[in-house]
């Protein structure tokens, strides 16, 4: 078939499809039947498949470039519409929280445990070391910073963990901005063969351990621990999970198995980003607790410790038990 005959026969159909694409999303849903000659939304998949066939023919028969380009353009637009995002994302979010998140964390448990050791190892080590050699802290934190921390956890402050010039909502915003950023850095730099994640996990574990140890040995133990106990479960777990997600990317590059490194990376990124969704949400909850609950002084330290322990128990049981079906 020559091009002129092809156009005479199919141009009408091509223009009909183009007209439907130009209607836009809202009118597709409404499926306006006012124009009888126009393409109906229900008939679009069939029309699209036929358009694909026309394009393949036009290309194979070496019709003029403008016609082939036009068909390519229409097929591409149709492709975007037909294979575009579907709805139902709200239900997915609930399913993710109820089972998807703890399941993916359990699937990657070896990496999560590795990340936890990389973080809590230096943390406990420094916490203990500074008890015996308080000056050791100066290797990691400058005296000026220490003075700042001492001011934050002064027993006479109006609120715990905050200087008197700070206020709750400002600190809440600050914690989100600061902590999620650390989480994202810990995750993203893991793509450098895991090195970045390892660095940030060890680095943060060391600094947090050193400061906790110092404040405890310097006699600010009670205000400090009653401040951090509430949000520690969410926040520290979220850092560890960010690190685990980063290690997932790094390990795919180090040991891709029987795939190309690129293929392995793409595969690894899927569970990794799911872990990051959850970690980001945990950072958010942690910031909320840290901004509004942790600074409260009206509750005794015992209550705050109890809440902290309960939250740790909840977080751990969520990851150990969440999303397991009965009988499996």
């Amino acid at each position, binding site marked *: 078939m020559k091009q*002129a005959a092809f156009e005479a026969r199919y141009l009408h159909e091509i223009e009909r499809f183009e007209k439907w694409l130009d209607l836009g999303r809202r009118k597709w849903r409404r499926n306006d039947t006012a124009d009888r000659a126009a393409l109906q939304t229900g008939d679009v998949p069939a029309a699209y498949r036929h358009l694909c066939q026309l394009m393949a023919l036009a290309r194979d028969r*070496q019709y003029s470039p403008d016609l082939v380009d*036009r068909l*390519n353009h229409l097929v591409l637009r149709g492709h975007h519409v037909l294979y575009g995002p579907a709805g139902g994302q709200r239900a997915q979010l609930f399913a993710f929280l109820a089972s998807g998140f703890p399941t993916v964390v359990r699937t990657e448990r070896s990496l999560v445990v590795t990340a936890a050791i990389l973080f809590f190892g230096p943390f406990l080590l420094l916490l203990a070391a500074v008890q015996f050699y308080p000056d050791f802290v100066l290797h990691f934190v400058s005296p000026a910073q220490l003075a700042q921390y001492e001011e934050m956890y002064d027993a006479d402050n109006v609120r715990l963990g905050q200087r008197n010039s700070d*206020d709750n909502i400002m600190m809440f915003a600050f914690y989100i901005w600061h902590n999620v950023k650390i989480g994202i850095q810990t995750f993203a730099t893991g793509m*450098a063969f895991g090195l970045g994640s390892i660095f940030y996990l060890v680095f943060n574990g060391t600094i947090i351990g050193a400061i906790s140890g110092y404040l405890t040995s310097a006699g600010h133990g009670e205000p400090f621990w009653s401040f951090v106990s509430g949000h520690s479960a969410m926040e520290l777990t979220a850092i560890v999970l960010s690190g685990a997600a980063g290690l997932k990317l790094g390990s795919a590059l180090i040991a891709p198995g029987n795939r190309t490194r690129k293929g392995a990376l*793409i595969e690894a*990124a899927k569970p990794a980003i799911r872990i990051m969704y959850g970690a980001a949400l945990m950072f958010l909850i942690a910031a909320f607790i840290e901004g509004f609950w942790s600074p409260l002084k009206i509750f005794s330290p015992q209550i705050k410790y109890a809440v902290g322990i309960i939250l740790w128990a909840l977080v751990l049981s969520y990851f150990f038990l969440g999303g397991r079906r009965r009988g499996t």
Partner: protein
Amino acid sequence: MLDTARRVATPEGIEITLRVAGPVPRALAYLLDLVIRIVIMVAISISVAMLGRFGLAVFLLSAFLLEWLYPVVFEVLGSGATPGKRAMGLIVLNDDGTPIRWPASLTRNLLRALDFLPFMYFIGYCSMVANRDFKRLGDLAANTLVVYREQKPTTARIPEADPVAPLLPLSLSEQRTLLDFAERSARITPDRAAELAEIISPLAAEQNGPAAVQHIVGIANHLVGRR
């Protein structure tokens, strides 16, 4: 075909053509987005300046959202492009040519934290020039492509002329070249068209100038089957 064209197979068994975008238009798009974000931040900081610490909270939260979620929201809900990318005619797609969704967009945008290092997207730039699809590390992990948004193609048709049968048998690709020339002849200057037509004067019956163009357009009319 240009080497930036990528063919992507679809489930319908055909291939569509995408043109990947290089570092320069992407950097410009990024700068445009940066300017937009800075303007928004300045506007927010002016409007909340009176609110003291609450204002600072609003400022910090919006700084956070603009830094990490600005590109994601636009890429997923705004048909694949941030305002900067839209201005540069770019769009982000999955490797198979489909629009991107939340996981892919988040992956590529969170990994900016690595691509950005050590300064000014140096790692991202090295990654882009080291692979044929101009992917930065975020694109590699998310399996996404930044391509040029398809312009609405020109629908210039081959000018009508009396069909002339070619004097020589023509291969398919030669036929296509002549069709391409006939379509373009209306868009380029007559002098340039004549110049191009004279290159193949044996086909144009040894004519020169506008007559040669006319002759080749005639052959094109014959090839598409006009009577």
